[in-house]
C-alpha cells in the first residue's frame, strides 16, 4: 500500500486538523501537533519533557478531558504505591487479596498521567515500568487502560546552573525506551508572538476542556484508518525508519529494535493524521524519537540531520540506490567497494564521503579516511576535490601524530604504559611489514587524538582490508 492512497482516504479527516490543540486552549504545541495526535492514534506511551510552566501537564490533562477519558493524574515524586492500587485486604474466603478502590486508584482508568516521573524513587520507577510497558500493576492486567503518559523536567546536571532542576534524575534507559515519543515542550523563547499573547491571557482558567467530542471522533476516524493499514504499513514509512535507525546506530546513537517499531507506528499514524508523508513530518518524528534526552544527552545534531537526509533520500529514491547502501554498510572495506563500483560522479562521491564522515563514530571515520586518503589524494577514487579535502582533514592527524598523552598510575603500580597503548600493542602483535607500520601509526594517532577504539584488532583488520581492496584493483 502506498502512503498516497492512505493520504486520499484520510484527506477528509485531515482537512480540519490544523491547530486542533489550540482549539482545546493549549497553545505553543502546534508544530508538534501531528506527533501528539499520532500518539492518541497509536496509543503508545508518550513522554513530555520541558522546563516547569510550559504546559506539559495542562496539555495531557486537556487531552483526556477532550477525549472524555477516565483519567488519573499522579505526581510520581509524592506517589505511594497504595495510591495507585488501593489498600490491600484479604478475600472473604482468604484465598487471595483484593484492593480497596478509591477515586484515585488506577483500576478502571483509561488514561494515566505520571507527572514528574524523573523525580520518583527507583523502586517506584520499577513499578511504573510495568504500568507503562505492560498495562499491568502488581502483575494484574489493567484492561481499561489505553493511554500511558508521563511528564518530566530536563535532567539535572552536576553543574547546577540557574536552569537546572535539582532532583530531576536521569530516567532509567530501559524505562525510557518504553516511551514511543519524547515531546520537548517549547519554552517562552520558542513561542510565536501570537502564541505568547494567547498563553498569557487568563481566559478559560480552571474550565474543563470540551470540544463537543470533535477530537474523540477524529481520533476514532484516524484510528480506524491506522488499524486497517498498520499490518500492511507503507514501504516508504518502513524504509525511512529502517534507514534512519541504521544510520543513527552507525553514528553511535543507539536506537533499539523496539524503538524502530515505535517509530514506524508513529510515523504511519502521523501520516494518517496529516494525510501525507512529508519530509518535515519525518524529521519531526526522528528528532522526537531519541531516548537520550531522558538521561540528559544531546545526540550530535549533525549526525541526526545526516541520518534524516539519508533516510529521506531513500524514500525519494534519489542518487540511485548506491548512496544509502554505502552509508548503511557497516564494514569499511565493503563500503569502499560500493563507492568504487557504484559511484558515477565525483559530486556523488564527495556527498557520500561528507555524510559518512559526519555520521560515523570518530574512530571509524578516521580509519576509513586513513586507509583511503592517499589513494584519493592520488586521484584514484571517484571523489571530488572537496571530498578529498574532507578525507585529508580527517586522516592528517593520524598520518602524522605528535602530542602528549597522560594517564593516571595507581599507587601500587610503577613504570606503567598508557592503558590504551597496551591494548593497541596487543592488536599489533603478529603484524609485519607495511601493515604493521600503518597500524602502529594509526594507533599512535588514536592516542594523541584521544580517539577511543573499542576493538583495535577488528578496526585494524578493516583498515588492512581497505588497503587490499585498493591494491587488488590497481588503485594503490
Amino acid at each position, binding site marked *: 500500500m502506498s502512503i498516497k492512497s492512505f493520504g486520499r482516504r484520510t484527506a477528509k479527516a485531515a482537512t480540519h486538523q490544523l491547530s486542533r490543540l489550540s482549539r482545546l486552549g493549549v497553545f505553543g504545541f502546534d508544530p508538534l501537533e501531528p506527533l501528539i495526535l499520532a500518539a492518541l492514534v497509536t496509543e503508545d506511551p508518550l513522554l513530555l519533557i520541558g522546563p516547569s510552566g510550559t504546559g506539559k501537564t495542562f496539555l495531557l490533562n486537556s487531552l483526556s478531558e477532550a477525549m472524555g477519558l477516565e483519567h488519573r493524574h499522579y505526581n510520581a515524586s509524592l506517589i505511594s504505591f497504595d495510591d495507585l492500587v488501593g489498600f490491600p485486604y484479604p478475600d472473604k474466603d482468604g484465598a487471595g487479596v483484593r484492593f480497596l478502590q478509591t477515586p484515585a486508584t488506577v483500576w478502571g482508568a483509561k488514561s494515566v498521567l505520571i507527572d514528574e516521573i524523573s523525580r520518583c524513587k527507583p523502586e517506584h520507577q520499577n513499578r511504573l515500568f510495568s504500568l507503562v510497558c505492560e498495562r499491568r500493576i502488581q502483575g494484574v492486567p489493567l484492561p481499561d487502560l489505553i493511554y500511558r503518559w508521563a511528564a518530566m523536567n530536563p535532567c539535572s546536571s552536576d553543574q547546577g546552573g540557574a536552569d537546572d532542576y535539582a532532583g530531576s534524575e536521569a530516567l532509567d534507559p530501559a524505562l525510557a525506551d518504553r516511551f514511543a515519543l519524547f515531546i520537548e515542550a517549547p519554552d517562552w523563547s520558542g513561542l510565536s508572538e501570537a502564541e505568547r499573547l494567547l498563553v498569557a491571557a487568563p481566559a478559560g482558567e480552571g474550565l474543563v476542556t470540551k470540544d463537543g467530542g470533535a477530537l474523540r471522533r477524529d481520533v476514532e476516524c484516524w484510528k480506524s484508518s491506522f488499524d486497517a493499514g498498520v499490518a500492511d504499513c507503507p514501504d516508504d514509512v518502513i524504509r525511512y525508519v529502517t534507514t534512519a535507525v541504521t544510520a543513527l546506530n552507525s553514528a553511535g546513537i543507539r536506537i533499539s529494535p523496539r524503538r524502530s517499531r515505535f517509530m514506524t507506528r508513529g510515523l504511519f499514524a502521523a501520516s494518517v493524521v496529516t494525510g501525507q508523508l512529508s519530509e518535515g513530518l519525518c524529521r519531526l518524528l526522528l528528532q522526537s524519537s531519541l531516548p537520550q534526552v531522558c538521561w540528559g544527552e544531546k545526540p550530535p545534531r549533525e549526525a541526526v540531520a545526516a541520518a534524516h537526509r539519508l533516510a529521506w533520500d531513500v524514500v525519494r529514491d534519489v542518487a540511485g540506490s548506491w548512496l544509502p547502501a554505502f552509508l548503511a554498510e557497516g564494514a569499511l572495506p565493503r563500503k569502499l567497494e560500493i563507492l568504487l563500483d557504484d559511484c558515477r560522479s565525483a559530486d556523488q562521491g564527495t556527498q557520500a564521503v561528507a555524510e559518512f564522515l559526519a555520521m560515523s563514530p570518530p574512530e571509524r571515520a578516521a580509519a576509513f579516511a586513513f586507509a583511503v*586518503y*592517499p*589513494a584519493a*589524494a*592520488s*586521484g584514484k577514487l571517484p571523489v571530488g*576535490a572537496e571530498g*578529498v*579535502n574532507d*578525507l*585529508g*582533514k580527517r586522516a*592528517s592527524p593520524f*598520518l*602524522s*601524530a*605528535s*602530542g*602528549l*598523552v*597522560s*594517564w*593516571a*598510575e*595507581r*599507587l601500587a603500580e610503577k613504570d*606503567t*604504559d*598508557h592503558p590504551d597503548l597496551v591494548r593497541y600493542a596487543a592488536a599489533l602483535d603478529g603484524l609485519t*611489514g*607495511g601493515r*604493521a*607500520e*600503518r597500524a*602502529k*601509526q594509526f594507533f*599512535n594517532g588514536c*592516542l*594523541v587524538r584521544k580517539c577511543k577504539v573499542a576493538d583495535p584488532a577488528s578496526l585494524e583488520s578493516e583498515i588492512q582490508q581497505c*588497503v587490499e581492496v*585498493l*591494491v587488488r584493483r590497481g588503485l*594503490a
Partner: protein
Amino acid sequence: MNPSLDVVRCGRERPWVYANSGGPSSRQRTQTISSSILGKDDGFVRCPRIIRLGLLFDETEDPVTVLTGILVEEGYGGPEALRGGFGLPEGRLICRPRAMCHDRLVVRDAPRRRVLEQALMLGLCTDQVFDPARPVLWTRTSLTRAVELFDPRGFYA
C-alpha cells in the same frame, strides 16, 4: 607565603624537603608521542617528502599584487604561463600544512625564479592535495600557506 610550603631543614640525603605539601607526589604519567608515516624514507611504507613550500611577504603587502608584479616584470603573461618554465611533479601529492614554519622564502630578498616556482606550486595546492592538473589559483590564502608535499604512492606497500 603559604605556610604549608615553608621549607624545613632535614639531616637526611636531601638537604631540603617540603613539608605538608599535600600528600604523595602526583601519579599522573605523561609521555610524548611523535610519529609520522609522511616523510618516511625507510621501512616498508614510504611516503617521501618532495618539497617544502612557504613564502614570507611584508605585512603591509598584498601577496597577490606582489606576485603579479613580479610576474609582469619577468615577462610572464599570467600564472599559468609559469608551467612551461618549471619542472612540476607529475602526479598528485599529499599536501600537509606546516604549523611552525620558520624557513619561509622571503619574497623581498629571494631570487625571483625561486619565488615564482614556489608561488606556482602553492597555486596548485588545496588544503590537503597538490594537483598539477588544476588551474593555478593565486589568492592571499594560497600564497601565504606553508606546506609540505609528500608522495602518497608508497603508502600501500
